């Protein structure tokens, strides 16, 4: 049994990879550690549960990564996706530390897949967890338990008592009962606030009712909000989130990977009124999937429809939901709940604008439309071969960018720029320091692991002194 009257060296708020990495590292550093996880055991691990890989710098091929991936290339990739909304110092430190993240996780019992072909062709840059993020979490939790880390599930942290930059105690709700726990240090690894629709409503209004949250419903942002209200320095735009296009039939929370849909580049996408609104063939899907969530969020009713014909079906991964099929475009529109005349007109105009070319789904093939607004600049082929296929799409929110500001020792900073005495952060709650915009596949897990380890080390050191 966990003794809540005890003074722990380190409290870890959260239960994902960033939290558990911190807990394991602090325990290895000799600290007594209590993990406070909001979710029940079966759903533990935050968004890490839905992850699949980690982006790691490496000088030479490893057992699970091909070729080499060096600091400068990694930094360039990050700079491109963030458009400069990053902190070069923190980012480069993270990139360099990512090299050691992989062996650390392996020591925690995490298994990786041998370098893999297919999917997003990431075998050079990203190491894939065998079995995915939940298998990773199982291994790290088992390691934590073996080391003697105490873990409380079903435990939401309501408030961190912060006085003059010193975290004195935290108030929790443990299985519905309020308690207060004291500790020498606190590590906040409690994620973003994408699971809190009411908070998002402040910025997006009732459109949030049409958003799908891809990950854990336990990312309520309660600790984040609580810290920011106590003078902790804020980073990241609160109105911004990372969003992709998902099958609209996805469950509201926790649908994870299977609801994503890769059909857009090989389709036309129309809104509720049957009108196209963006170039579906602008770039390869791995570089474009992340903008479609926002594009759809800006459409009326936050919904869109991907429409293609039989030719395109073999070109994309199936979503978990069956395609909606019909013998004609009009019938498909009807089945999708759209105005058949409007959709037929859109398809007719589009077909008329498609230019001849040699189609190649594996590269930017230049098959485009002429005189159409907006244009489709690659993979444009006429939609004329039954059966016609449709999928409804909604914005799927992966994470929010708002966070607490930290320094390179994972210490949380106050508004006045001074570091807190004993409060650290790792994972999504501080990822905005490095990733202010966009996303780089597997980088969330890298930030979580790197900062989790730093926070754990620093907290253990602080507790010892």
């Amino acid at each position, binding site marked *: 049994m966990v003794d809540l009257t005890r003074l722990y060296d380190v409290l870890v708020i959260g239960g994902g990879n960033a939290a558990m990495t911190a807990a394991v590292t602090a325990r290895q550093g000799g600290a007594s550690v209590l993990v406070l996880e909001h979710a029940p055991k079966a759903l533990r691990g935050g968004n890490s*549960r839905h992850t*699949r890989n980690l982006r790691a710098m490496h000088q030479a091929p490893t057992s699970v990564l091909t070729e080499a991936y060096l600091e400068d290339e990694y930094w360039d990739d990050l700079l491109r996706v963030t458009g400069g909304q990053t902190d070069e110092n923190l980012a480069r430190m993270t990139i360099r530390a990512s090299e050691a993240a992989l062996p650390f996780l392996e020591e925690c019992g995490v*298994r990786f897949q041998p370098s893999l072909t297919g*999917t997003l062709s990431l075998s050079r840059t990203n190491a894939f967890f*065998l*079995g*995915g993020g939940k*298998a990773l979490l199982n291994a790290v939790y088992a390691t934590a338990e073996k080391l003697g880390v105490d873990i409380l599930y079903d435990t939401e942290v309501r408030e961190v008592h912060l006085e003059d930059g010193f975290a004195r105690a935290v108030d929790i709700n443990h299985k519905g009962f309020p308690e207060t726990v004291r500790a020498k240090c606190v590590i906040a690894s409690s994620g973003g606030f994408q699971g809190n629709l009411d908070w998002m409503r402040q910025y997006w209004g009732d459109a949030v009712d049409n958003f799908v949250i891809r990950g854990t419903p336990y990312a309520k942002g309660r600790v984040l909000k609580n810290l920011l209200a106590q003078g902790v320095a804020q980073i990241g735009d609160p109105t911004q989130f990372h969003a992709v296009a998902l099958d609209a039939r996805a469950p509201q929370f926790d649908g994870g*990977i299977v609801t994503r849909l890769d059909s857009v580049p090989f389709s036309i996408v129309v809104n509720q009124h049957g009108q196209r609104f963006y170039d579906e063939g602008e770039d390869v899907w791995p570089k474009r999937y992340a903008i479609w969530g926002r594009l759809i969020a800006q459409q009326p009713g936050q919904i869109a429809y991907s429409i293609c014909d039989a030719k395109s079906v073999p070109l994309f991964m199936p979503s*978990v939901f069956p395609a909606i099929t019909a013998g004609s475009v009009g019938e498909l529109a009807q089945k999708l709940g759209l105005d058949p005349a409007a959709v037929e007109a859109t398809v007719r105009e589009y077909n008329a604008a498609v230019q001849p070319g040699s189609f190649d789904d594996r590269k930017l093939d230049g098959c485009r439309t002429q005189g159409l607004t907006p244009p489709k600049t690659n993979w444009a082929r006429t939609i004329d071969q039954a059966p016609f296929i449709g999928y409804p799409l909604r914005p799927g929110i992966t994470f929010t960018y708002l966070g607490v500001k930290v320094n390179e020792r994972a210490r949380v900073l106050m508004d006045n720029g001074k570091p807190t005495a004993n409060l650290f952060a790792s994972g999504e709650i501080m990822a905005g320091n490095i990733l202010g915009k966009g996303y780089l596949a597997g980088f969330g897990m890298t930030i979580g692991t790197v900062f989790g380890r730093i926070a754990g080390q620093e907290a253990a050191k602080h507790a010892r002194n």
Partner: protein
Amino acid sequence: MRETDAIAEARRNLEVCNACRYCEGYCAVFPAMELRREFPATDLGYLANLCHGCRGCFYACQYAPPHEFGINLPKVFAEIRQESYVQYAWPQPMAKLFERNGTVVSVAAALITALVMIGTALFQSPDRLFGVHRGEGAFYAVIPHNVMVLLAGSTFVFALVAIAISIARFWREAGGGAGPNGKQGMGKPLMQAVRDALTLKNLGGGGHGCNDTDGSFATSRRNLHHALFYGFMLCFASTNVATYYHYGLGLQAPYGYFSLPVILGTVGGIGMTVGASGLIWLKIVGDPEPVSRRLLGADYAMLVLLWMVAVTGLVLLAVRSTSAMGVTLAIHLGFVLALFVALPYSRMVHGAYRFAALVRAAREH
């Protein structure tokens, strides 16, 4: 395969799996699944038999219960395997034996052992049955060699024929191995399947072990299965060597403690005992969630029967020069006979179905 609730449930599961694919490193099931977009019942029968029940995918699954998708492949595949044993059983009326198979196998084992005991007691005088027999032909003084050969030989041959017919049907209905990438030629796939079966490659969760009892990886299930399987094979080899001694060299059992048949049989018997005991233990302490409880009886019955065969054989070796030999021999041969009789209508057939599935998987890739 017929359309059943289990088939529909497996199809629903695999549609989620095929959109996720996080488990592709675990075993042969997932690469085979990725070759498909639709899952007709026959393909599900094949995939279910390819599944070794390591449970790696269950513990790794972000959609396992209590998630609303409720994905649990090991459980539904176990149910489909059972349905395939029923549907392809030969002769068909015997398929009923797969229902309440635990009871059937247990009762059959008890009855047959009792019959052999009673038969021996009826045909032999008590002096013979309870006498001390030593030297060449000692066993046959209690049960004549011809009777042994006739009973064991006929039931074993029948078992092989029945299993072969079942597998042939299974193979044919599943498309004869001509899957999405179906290749011609059998040599290489056959070798690959033999290798995979002998090493239990797919019981390794991608090389790191199975989830024997919970979310942590271990290799005990694989090692115990090796002990049981290779133990069984050693006992089988022992019988073959003994047959050669008997007919080829004119030497009659019992053989010396350091003779080849006795060494093979002893090592094999110990392997089987350890393997069966361990596998029973894992079933008792294991997580019941990824298991079809309905089918546990059949597993226990078969493991206990194998355990009885091994242990009675070892006991026979220990008491063979005492007056207990006669009764022990009758009991041991009773269990061996029960094993042969039950063979085509018990969990033992999983090996044959799995091997066929492995051949097909090797042909597809």
